[in-house]
């Protein structure tokens, strides 16, 4: 017993810290609450989460339902209004060719959202599988994977993506996968080190002695125990992927016309940012709001999963 035990004593009135001697009767009485239930309860109490989730939901509607309601499509040209500032007919104005910026932004956002929400979790899944295998199997496999991770980390991701450009020229679906394939390394390292400590835990040993193979142990015991990390990473990864996609498209190595994404819109509008600011401000504003919302949700999620990391708990 020492001071740290007192901390446990005070924190664990319900038996988390102090190991209360047993009771052969059913645990009963107090309402059972699973871990995910606990996380959800904490999440519910965080205003940042609701703000982020609300904005995200609004943006989703904006990107999916919006284009259906709009009288224009992205290829429609309004010959009556080239380079028009925002009006009642074109809320966000039009560009040099008379394209409606509002519908362009909505469709561009749609593409960016799809790319972000597929590539982000995909990168996390890759990280989970590769990292946990390297950590669990160990030995030569671990060494080879670790070297590969280091190699990928040394090469600048953006540079790799530009080099890969000839392989997905214009095809944004392929690009989405390439984005995922270049964004998993750091998380894989985190998962690998977590797995190495989990591997020494008795319940993982027990599973091995029961005769489960590596795949079963990893999927049953390792990944669920790093799941909280993965969920956070996947959420924040969405934002990172959207940003990468935007950057690539901005420089012309991403989504190609006639498809639009927030990146291509920004690229088109950037020259006019000072003269016809609506061309630039609309996609840029949507991008900033989107990233903020995602980060709010990711942040709230991290605090809910790991109470010690947050600022809102003392």
């Amino acid at each position: 017993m020492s001071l740290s035990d007192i901390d446990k004593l005070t924190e664990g009135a319900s038996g988390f810290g102090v190991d209360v001697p047993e009771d052969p009767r059913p645990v009963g009485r107090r309402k059972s609450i699973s871990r995910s239930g606990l996380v959800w309860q904490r999440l519910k109490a965080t205003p940042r989460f609701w703000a982020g989730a609300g904005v995200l939901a609004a943006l989703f509607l904006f990107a999916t339902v919006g284009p259906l309601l709009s009288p224009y499509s992205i290829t429609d040209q309004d010959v009556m209004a080239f380079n028009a500032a925002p009006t009642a007919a074109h809320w966000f104005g039009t560009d040099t060719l008379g394209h409606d910026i509002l519908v362009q932004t909505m469709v561009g956002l749609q593409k960016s959202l799809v790319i972000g929400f597929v590539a982000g979790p995909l990168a996390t899944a890759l990280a989970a599988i590769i990292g946990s295998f390297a950590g669990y199997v160990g030995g030569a496999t671990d060494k080879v994977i670790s070297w590969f991770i280091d190699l990928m980390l040394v090469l600048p991701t953006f540079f790799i993506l530009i080099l890969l450009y000839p392989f997905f020229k214009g095809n944004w679906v392929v690009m989405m996968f390439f984005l995922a394939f270049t964004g998993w390394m750091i998380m894989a390292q985190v998962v690998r080190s977590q797995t190495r400590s989990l591997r020494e835990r008795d319940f993982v040993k027990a599973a091995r002695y029961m005769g489960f193979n590596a795949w079963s142990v990893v999927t049953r015991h390792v990944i669920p125990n790093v799941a909280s990390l993965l969920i956070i990473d996947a959420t924040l990864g969405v934002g990172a992927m959207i940003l990468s996609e935007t950057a690539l498209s901005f420089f012309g190595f991403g989504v190609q016309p006639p498809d639009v994404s927030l990146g291509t819109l920004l690229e088109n509008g950037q020259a006019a940012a000072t003269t016809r600011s609506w061309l630039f401000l609309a996609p840029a504003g949507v991008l900033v709001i989107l990233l903020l919302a995602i980060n709010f949700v990711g942040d709230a999620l991290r605090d809910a999963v790991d109470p010690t990391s947050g600022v809102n708990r003392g």
Partner: protein
Amino acid sequence: MADARSSAPLLEVRNLSVTFPQSTGDVQAVRDISYTISEGEFLGIVGESGSGKSVSSLAIMGLLPDNAEVTGEILFQGKSLLKLDDRELSRIRGNELAIIFQDPLSALTPVYTIGDQIGEALRLHDRSLSRAGAEARAVELLQIVGIPDAARRVKAFPHEFSGGMRQRAMIAMAISNNPRLIIADEPTTALDVTIQAQILEVLEEAKRITGAAVSLITHDLGVVAGHADRVAVMYAGKLVELGDVDQIFHEPNMPYTIGLLRSVPNIRTAGTERLVPLEGRPPSLANLPVGCPFAARCPIAIPKCTQVEPELAQHGRDPAHTSACHRAGEIASGALTPPQIFPRPEPLALAVRGKGETVLSVENLVKHFPLMRGGVFRRRVGTVRAVDGVSFSVSAGRTLAIVGESGCGKTTTILELMELTKPQGGRIVIEGRDIGALSKDERRALRSDIQIVFQDPSAAVDPRLPIGEVIGEPLLAQKVSRADREKRVAELLDLVGLDASMAQRYPHEFSGGQRQRVGIARGLATDPRVLVLDEPVSALDVSIQAGIINLLQDLRDQLGLSLVFVAHDLAVVRQIADDVAVMYLGRIVEQGPIVSVFDDPKHPYTQALMSAAPIPDPTAERARSRVLLDGDLPSPAEQIDGCRFRTRCPLYKLLDESAQARCIGEDPKLQPHGDVAVACHHVERNTLVVG
């Protein structure tokens, strides 16, 4: 210093209460306790985890966190400690009041040498002392606490010391300023029995030299029995019984004390009768029931017990013996006897046991770990001989215990068994099949015959799975269908004394003892022939251990299981095992039926282990003669020629030179002596007496 007040008690605690405010309800860690410690007295404070025993002592030292609300009065040599500010308290702390913590590694600063830290304690309270003077005194202190080569060791850093040596250094630091009171908070809990015996001896020595009073906080009744003058028993933040050590152990008045005493196995008598489990668990300190906190677990509770909390009062003849129980009068007068309060449970009808066919046999098992050094060009710099030629066999329905200090290779041995792969050296045969020659599918099938239960129940179950899934896991590995799994899980929960409706709950909702039952249920899922248990009760509180041990015995007898039981608590081993193997540095040094080995140990190491194990009986403890070992277990990487035990052997020191030469030159083999096998050259000359 204290002679003027020798009549007044050294320390007087009056109505001390400690509360930790919480949003979910205040945690009342200590509730209105009063006791005194006289000059030079040895007080033992006993209680389970969460009973408030440590908190009350930290309150005396003024070391509680700031959010603790402390009320009452603590008088030390007539001064009220609670009224002093931190500076005044610091002057007393470390000077007249000293504390020894449980974990000496975290209590010592890793970046300063041991000598510097002892010197700091000295110079802090005596400004005139020079640096050199402090170091000289530190060397002296280290000699007192029995650290060999103290002049050199004083310059060592804490990580260079073993656990036992660190605890010695802590004691040296505690006695450095001739304190009047030493508070020892579970000082031996993290240590091996042999080291525990050494440390308690050093503590006694320190007490003798300084004349200080000692307040020893522990959960181990055996430790208290051998050393304390008076004993205080705590339960749920309250002092429930206080008295002379003989009174507490021989005529306890409080049912909790009685239950505790009847639930601990005694190394002398264990195995002859069943243990008495103490049902239930202590109440949550945040939400205490009205009345006596023990009422819910007390077999003789009357309606009054749930209405009025009993006060500590005299019930027997001696005013110094007080207890908090409404029915203590009846107990003291003999109207209620301990066996009436806590009757021993009847053993289950024995299935046919005894010499069955051999289920598991291990021949010359070897497991060496290479010691590597260097980054890019790794080279082998040595070998850790964790297991070095171990042979044993287990027959159906019998229990083999493997005992020894930590680091002796007992856990490595059983983990090697569980791997079910061809060992580095030797042979493992399970159910007549050599596991070195198994195919992959045969190996998986064989896994259902041998299962393991781990030491720490909270680490052994995956926190993300409901316990039904945890228990059914071995069946999943054997590809049993979901419906059959669920049926079996319900059976198993019932078998280990848990409710079948609990299958959907998560591990964190269970107490330590219940989680260990879950671990046992998982071990039994595939109906194995051999269950391997790695220290299954050592992480549990005393009152729960009895329940788990009884359960294991029942299961073994009902199911005809063979158990391989690894433990360091010899009383527990004697309670459950039929045969025992004593391991030292990767070898078995003595092996045989438990009664023969425990009653008449022949190897000097076994003798030392036996005499280090505390007995929860003060009369027996005082009458014992001990075989104490020198120093710690050598590193298994060290190459020792001849007998590996000779560096610590008490017999070796008594031998003449020619006999010693044999110990150095020749590695002893296990030789039969009566019905036991002993690896010692000089069994006939062994004159060591073990009590």
